[in-house]
C-alpha cells in the first residue's frame, strides 16, 4: 500500500484561486518522491494539506492509510515536516529546540534528550547545541530546522523546498544527508524548483504547474519521453516573431523531428541520436537563409522535460521571508 495516496485534490483560496486543481498521485514506502514546479504551482499547498495544516476544498488525501481530514493527530504522529521557511526559535538553544519538539511528540524528556543529542551530532551542531539559535548561521539554522522534523523518528518526511536559499556546498551536504535518511528507510516527499535537485535526489517525480500535474515518472522515464536529444537553435536577441516562426517551420519540416518547441528567441527540435542530425539541421537552416546566433546539442535534461510539458523554462525565484521586528528587536529571517 502506498504511504501517501492523493486523489483529485483541490484547494481553492477565496472565491476562485484554484491553487491545486485536481491532483492525484501516490508515494510508495521507501522512495524519494519529488514535486518539481515553479513558485505558485501548488507545491506548498499540496504539502500543507498532507501535513494537516490546510483543509482541502475537495478530493481525498491519505497518509499511511489515514485520512488527513478525519484524524489529523494520528497523521501528525507519523510524519515529520520542514516548511519552506525556517521556524527556529532564536531565544532557545539548539538542544532545547529539539527536546521541545520531542516532548510535543509525546516523547519522555529522557528519550527526547537522547534523540536530540544524537541528531545534533549528525547535523554537526554538537558544539553549538548550548548556544541560542539566534547566533547560528543560515546553514546551521536550516539544519536545525530539518532536525526538528526528525526528533520523533518519523518514517515519512515532508520537505518543502529544503535547500532553497542554501549555497551549493550546503545543498550538496543536505542531499547527502537526505540520501542517508532514505537508505535508513525514511520515505521522503519533497518539493523543489531546482532541476539538479530533482535529478540528484528523487526516485520519482511529478511536474506540477498551475495546480496540475503535467507529467509524472522517474527522471529517466521523463527524459526518455521527450524523444531523444534536443538541438536548440538560438537566434539573435532582436529576432522578430516571424523569424522565429520561420525557423520553427523549417525544423518541423525535418524528417527526424519528434517535436519542436519555441521559447524566448530559441527553437528546440527533439531528435533521436542528435549528433548525426546536426548536419541536416544546419543544411535546412542554410537553405532557408537563417543565420543563427548559436546552435546547441544537448542530451535530454529535466529542463527539457519541464519545457516540453509546460511550454516554459523553469525559473527559480526565491521568496524572501519578510523581516520582522518584535519588541524593538530585529529578528533574523
Amino acid at each position, binding site marked *: 500500500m502506498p504511504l501517501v495516496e492523493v486523489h483529485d485534490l483541490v484547494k481553492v483560496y477565496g472565491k476562485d484561486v484554484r491553487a491545486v486543481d485536481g491532483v492525484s498521485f501516490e508515494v510508495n514506502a521507501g522512495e524519494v518522491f519529488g514535486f518539481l514546479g515553479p513558485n505558485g504551482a501548488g507545491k506548498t499547498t499540496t504539502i500543507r494539506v498532507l*501535513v*494537516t*495544516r490546510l*483543509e482541502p476544498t475537495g478530493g481525498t488525501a491519505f497518509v499511511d492509510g489515514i485520512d488527513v481530514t478525519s484524524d489529523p*493527530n*494520528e497523521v*501528525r*504522529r507519523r*510524519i515529520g*515536516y520542514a*516548511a519552506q*521557511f*525556517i*521556524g*527556529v*526559535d*532564536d*531565544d*532557545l538553544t539548539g538542544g*532545547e529546540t529539539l527536546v*521541545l*519538539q520531542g*516532548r*510535543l*511528540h*509525546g516523547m519522555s524528556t529522557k528519550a527526547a534528550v537522547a534523540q536530540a543529542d544524537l541528531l545534533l551530532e549528525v547535523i554537526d551542531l554538537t558544539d553549538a547545541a548550548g548556544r*541560542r539559535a539566534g547566533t547560528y548561521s543560515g546553514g546551521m539554522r536550516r539544519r536545525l530546522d530539518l532536525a*526538528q522534523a526528525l526528533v520523533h523518528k518519523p518514517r515519512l518526511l515532508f520537505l518543502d523546498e529544503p535547500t532553497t536559499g542554501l549555497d551549493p556546498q550546503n545543498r550538496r551536504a543536505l542531499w547527502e544527508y537526505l540520501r542517508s535518511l532514505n537508505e535508513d528507510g525514511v520515505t521522503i516527499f519533497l518539493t523543489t524548483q531546482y532541476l539538479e535537485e530533482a535529478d540528484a535526489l528523487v526516485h520519482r517525480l511529478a511536474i506540477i504547474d498551475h495546480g496540475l500535474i503535467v507529467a509524472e515518472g522517474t527522471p529517466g522515464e521523463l527524459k526518455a519521453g521527450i524523444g531523444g536529444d534536443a538541438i536548440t537553435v538560438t537566434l539573435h536577441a532582436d529576432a522578430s516573431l516571424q523569424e522565429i516562426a520561420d525557423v520553427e517551420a523549417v525544423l518541423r519540416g525535418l524528417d527526424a523531428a519528434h517535436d519542436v518547441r519555441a521559447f524566448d528567441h530559441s527553437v528546440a527540435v527533439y531528435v533521436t541520436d542528435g549528433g548525426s542530425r546536426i548536419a541536416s539541421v544546419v543544411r535546412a537552416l542554410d537553405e532557408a537563409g537563417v543565420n543563427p546566433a548559436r546552435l546547441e546539442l544537448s542530451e535530454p535534461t529535466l529542463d527539457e522535460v519541464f519545457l516540453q510539458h509546460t511550454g516554459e523554462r523553469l525559473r527559480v525565484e526565491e521568496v524572501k521571508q*519578510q523581516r*520582522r521586528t*518584535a*519588541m*524593538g*528587536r530585529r*529578528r533574523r529571517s
Partner: protein
Amino acid sequence: MTALVDSLTLWRRNTLKTIRVPTVLFFALFQPLLFLFLFSQVFGSLANLPGFQYDSYLQFLVPSIVALTALNSAFSSGMSTVTDMEDGLMDKFLIAPIHRLSIMAGRIFADGSRIMVQALLIIGISLLMGTTYATGVLGIVVIILLAALFGMAWAGLSNIIALRTGNAEATMIVGITITFPILFLSTAFMPAFLLPAWLENVAKLNPITYLVEAIRSLVNDGWIWSDVMQALLVILLLGAIMLTGAVRAFRKAVS
C-alpha cells in the same frame, strides 16, 4: 491528561523565552513603576481631603499599580502569539500531535506566572516605600493570585485582538489605547466619592474596579471575603468570555 502535559511543556518554553529576553518582563513594569512614583507624589495631598478613608495616598494607590501591572503584562500575551506565528514557530506546534487548546493554555499559563513575578516585584517595592499590608503575607499571596487570574482573563482579550488582526503592532496600539480608559474609568486613581456621578456608575461596570477594590480591602481593611469573592466572580465571568473568544479566534486563525 496529555493535553495538560503539553500545556505545561509549552508553558515552560514560553517562560524560558521570557527569562531569556526579559524585555517584556520589564517593559510591562516600567509604566506601573513610573505611575507609582509620580502619582504618589503628585496626588499625595488627596489623602488630606475629608472623606478619604485610607492612611495615605500610597496605601490607596498600590493596589491600582498591581492591577495596572497585570493589565499591561496581559497585553503582551497576544503579541507573543503573533510573533510565534510570524517566526514560523506556531507552525511547529500545530504540526505536533497535541490538542490545539494546549497551545493557548501554555500561553495563558505563562502570562499568569509572569504576572505573579511582576506583582511580587511591585509589592516588594511598595513595602520598601512604606506600604503596610493589613492581611500580611497570606494577604499578599491572595493579592498576587487575584492579579494573575485577572491578567489571564485579560490576556484572552489581547489574544482575540492579536489573532483577528494578525499584527503585533496593532495589538500593542489597541492594548495601550484600551488600558487608559479602562484605568481612568475606574476607581483606580480617584476614590469613588471624588468621581462625578456618571463616572462612578461607569466604574461599577468596569471589571478592573472590582480587582482594585478587592486588593485595596486586603491591603487596608483586612479579610473582607465579600470583596474577594466579588472580584473572583468578575474574573471568572471575564475569563469565560475572553478566553472563549480567544480560543475561537485561535481556531479560526490557524485553520
